[in-house]
Structures are given as C-alpha cells and as structure tokens.
C-alpha cells in the first residue's frame, strides 16, 4: 500500500523549501538596521499568527485576547531571568508550560461560548491579564515596565547579534510551521476541519469536539508565549501596554487579511499588515509631517475593504491562480472554503 501522507498531501515540501531559501537569502539583500529589526519582529509575530490560524481557521474559534498569552510569556521570561536569575532557556520553557496550563483551564470554560460572546470573553481575558501586569508593580514593574532582560546565548553563539538572532527566530518559525503543518495533516487536523462542516457529524463519530477546541486554544496560546519570550529577550525591555487588546486586534487582523484557512495565509497577512503600517507611518512622518499613529486610518480602511471584497484573505489569490493551472478542477471557481493543505505548509 502507498504511503498515506504522500498520497493525501503531496507537494508539501515545495512551499517550505522556497520559504527556507527566501529566509536564508534575505540578510544578503537587506542591510538597513531598521528593516532587519522589522524582519525579526515579523518572525516573532508570525509564530503567534500561525497559532491563531490553527485556532481560527481550523478549529473555527475566534480570539481577541492572544496578546495576553504573548504578555504572559514575555513577563515569565523577564521576571524569572531578572529577579530570580534563572536560565533564559528554562524560563522560556517554564513560560510556555505555564501559559499552556492557564490557557487550557481558561479554555475549558471559555470555549463553551461561541461567536461574538467568545470574542468578548477573550477580550476580557486580555484586559484582566493587562491589568495584572500593570498593577502587580513589585513583580512586573507596573506601567514603567521591566528592563535589563538578558540577551540569549545558544551554545556559545551570541544571539544578541542581529543576524544571529534573525536566523534563530526564523528557524523557530520554521519549526512552528512544520509542527503546525504536521498537526493539520494528521487525524487531529481532519477532526478540526470537520468541526466547520458538521459539529454534529464529528460528535456522532465518537469525537468530543470541545476537547480539541481547548487543546488547539492552549497550543496557540503556547506559541504566543514563546513569541513573547523571544520578544522580551530581543528588545530587553517590556511594558504592559505592548500586551493590551489593540495588539490582539492587530494579530486577528493579520490572520484574517492574510487568509485564515492556511498557515501561509497567516504569514502573508503578518508581512502585509506590518509593512503596510510601517510604510504609511514612514511616509506620513517624513513627508506629510503628521505625528501619531496616523497609519491606522489606512489600516482600518484596508481591513474593511479586504473583508468585503476578499473575505478569504490574500492567500485566496494564490488559490485561484493554482486552480486555474489545474485542468481537472471544476469550473465553478467559487469555492469559498479553500482549506489549503495540499499546497500549504
């Protein structure tokens, strides 16, 4: 009998190879410090948005609260290394474990809610975590933030170096992509996708749907925690305002604009929104001489237009293109649910 995964999900590695080559070569082209910093942040954000695409695109559950888990990871790393002199690596892992447990236990309750109410509950989680980060001054330094977080060092390689850290972050992104891709291509992935089509159907097949929703929620939170730790060690200073609801909204927008049904969509969205925001900010500050976060006016506009005219995100353009190249595909072209597994990660 043929190998199951080769028959079911062929061509999986093509995208990944292109991606890896791109990541490896970018530092040759990019020399500006500013763009470099952006690329590192993109990697960090991608880790979270990939998790969100698992949660939103596959498990079908929304979250406007992942900045909270990002914050828990960042603060676990920061507090454990600066106040308890713990090894940075141990702190990262402890942070991920703590976040997993918190998200799991919160998730058991929260994921019983649906749609708008679930969205509100995740906002509530975010606000509560933010308030605690702000108010627990002895531990977190309150609104003033927490500095002096050490740079990372991996087996003698100084990750304080921009280029090293760039590769380090993107290697982790690659691992996250592979892990998530494996998950989607397993039976767990099929269970998650089946929830969209018929929750009744999958329950009748003997699967407790809520269990998988909660697990994916916890896993996506763990990704966010990992990203938070990386952020803390990169920037070396954190303050609560980074981890408030607006960042959760930004993450959600990235995933939705890129295309929620695919991991690549999440990454495309992350890149697109980040560069859009940075680009507008750059132009408005340097050429139009307006101050403040004016980029939000374009950003807000783009979100609305995208959701009206391209509800499946930028990645759906690629799907359409691919479809045109395949002869055996039906002529409808109106497939509104392109769960991208074959060509994806």
């Amino acid at each position, binding site marked *: *009998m043929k*190998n*199951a*995964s080769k*028959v*079911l999900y062929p061509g999986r590695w093509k995208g990944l190879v292109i991606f890896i080559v791109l990541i490896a070569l970018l530092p040759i082209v990019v020399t500006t410090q500013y763009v470099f910093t952006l690329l590192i942040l993109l990697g960090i954000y991608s880790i979270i948005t990939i998790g969100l695409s698992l949660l939103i695109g596959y498990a079908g559950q929304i979250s406007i609260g992942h900045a909270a888990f990002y914050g828990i990871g960042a603060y676990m790393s920061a507090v454990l290394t600066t106040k308890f002199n713990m090894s940075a690596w141990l702190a990262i892992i402890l942070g991920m474990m703590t976040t997993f447990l918190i998200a799991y236990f919160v998730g058991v309750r929260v994921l019983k809610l649906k749609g708008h109410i679930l969205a509100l509950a995740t906002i509530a989680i975010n606000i509560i975590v933010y308030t605690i980060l702000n108010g627990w001054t002895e531990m977190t330094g309150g609104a003033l933030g927490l500095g002096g977080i050490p740079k990372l060092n991996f087996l003698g390689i100084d990750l304080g170096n921009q280029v090293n850290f760039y590769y380090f972050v993107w290697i982790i992104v690659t691992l996250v992509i592979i*892990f*998530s891709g*494996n*998950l989607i291509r*397993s*039976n*767990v*992935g*099929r*269970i998650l*996708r*089946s929830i*969209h*089509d*018929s929750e*009744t*159907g*999958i*329950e*009748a*097949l*003997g*699967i*407790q*749907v809520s269990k*998988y929703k909660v*697990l*994916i929620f916890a*896993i996506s939170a763990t990704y966010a925690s990992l990203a938070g730790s990386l952020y803390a060690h990169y920037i070396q200073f954190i303050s609560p305002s980074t981890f408030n609801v607006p960042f959760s909204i930004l993450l959600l927008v990235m995933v939705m604009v890129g295309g929620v049904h695919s991991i690549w969509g999440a990454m495309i969205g992350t890149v697109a929104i980040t560069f859009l925001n940075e680009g507008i900010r750059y132009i408005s500050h340097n050429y139009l001489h307006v101050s403040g976060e004016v980029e939000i006016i374009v950003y807000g506009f783009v979100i609305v237009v995208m959701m009206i005219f391209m509800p499946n995100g930028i990645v759906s353009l690629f799907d359409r293109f691919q479809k045109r190249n395949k002869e055996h595909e*039906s002529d409808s072209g109106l*497939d509104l*649910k392109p*769960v991208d597994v074959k060509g994806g990660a």
Partner: protein
Amino acid sequence: MTEPILQVEHLTKRFGGVTAVEDVSFEVFPGEIVAVIGPNGAGKTTLFNMITCFTPPTEGRVKLSGENITNKKIFELAPLGMMRTFQNLEVFGSMTAIENLMTGISVQLKNRVFAAGFRLKSAREEEQYAYEKAMELIELTGLQGLEHTLVEQMSYGQQKKVEFAQTIISNPRLVLLDEPMAGLNEVETEAMADTILQMRDRGMTFLFVEHKMATIMRIADRIVVLDFGKKIAEGTPAEIQKNEDVIRAYIGGDLDDVKSS
C-alpha cells in the same frame, strides 16, 4: 437465545402537551436487520434521536448490550460500538472522500496532538492504518476514482455512500441508519441494500428508518411499526404485510402505494 444488542424499554417523549413517542419497547439481536416504519409524523425520528442520545427521553431507557446508555453524551456512543447516519447528511463537505472516511475511523485512533505535531512513529502508523482502512471502504462502497474529490462536489447519492462508509469504517457492532435510501435512485437504492446485507454478513447489526417498502421487505429480518407515537406491530415482513392494524394505519390500500414507491 442470544443476548439482545439493543434494548429499547418504554421510551416516551412528550413535547409540552404533545406525546411524540409513547411507551415504545423492542429489542434488536446481534446480526439482525430491523426496520422501523410508520406514516409521516409517527415519531420515528424522535425515537431514533432518543436511542442515539440526541434527545433525552421523558421516560424509559435504552440499553446497549445490557449497559444503560440513556443519558450518555453523543460522542460516548461510538466508542461503545454504536454509530448512526443522518436523514440530512452530516458529511464534511470541504474535505475529500478519503479524508471523510479517515475521519470516520477517529474513534479507533489515539489522536494525540503532540504525537501528530512531531510526527512520531505512533502518529505515522495511525495515519497509514486509517488510510488503508479508508481505501478498503472506498472500494467496498464503489467510490473508486472519487477518493480525492471534495464531498461537497459530489452527487447526493455519492455523498450518501460517503456517509455510510464513514459510519461503518470503524466496524461498529450496531449501526442506526436514518432513511439510508431517501433521495437515491433505483440503482443506488439496490446498491445500498446490498452493501447493508454484505456488512451484516460481516457481523454488523442494523436498525434503520425507511420509507421504501420494497427494499425494507427485501432486507429486513423484522419490522417495528409506529403510528401516532405508539408501536402498533412488530414482526417479520410477511407478518407485517398481513397485519390489519398496519394496513389500517396506512389507510387501506396505502401500503401498496408505499410499496411501489
């Protein structure tokens, strides 16, 4: 005599003042094919939903191999070897036929998230097992050539086959089919009936609701007849055809009408 696999004891369902099912009892023995028939509104679907834990009964209970399953959750039944299909198809349209079937076997797999994410050996083996099982069922139900087609792009008859295959792939002991032939043409109906008989020979037990009398008479060992929520008759097809209560329930010649439909 062998132990019954399914015991339905005094099941009653009242919705407000209306009694949809009243004191219905019957048994199904291993290896049997039992049909539940009755005019529209006789309470067949409600009965089915109570047996499969979709609706809690007002009174009475359901036992599977002697174990009381009356208040179980829906997803707890499949692990006990009891599966069901739906009148209005609960397949996964955005997935291919083979993916649907592989999902059907979930109940036999461990589905560990971390094993899957790291693609540990256990996960790879599960995947291979599910795939081979699914290919077997594709062949058995005559879905060859369609394994990589999205289910939502299939015809109604093909989707019904997918649902049926997905339901029996995990080798359940007892399968409940809610109108398995509805919407199928003559050829498809016959094929479905044949598959049911074939699976019975492999040791499965079937309880099904259906309207197509000719097929029922052909494959059913016993028939339970409901009318206005009550059981009015039970017996072999031959007995049921002669039963006066049944003929009255279908208002005289109607039984023949249904027969020919």
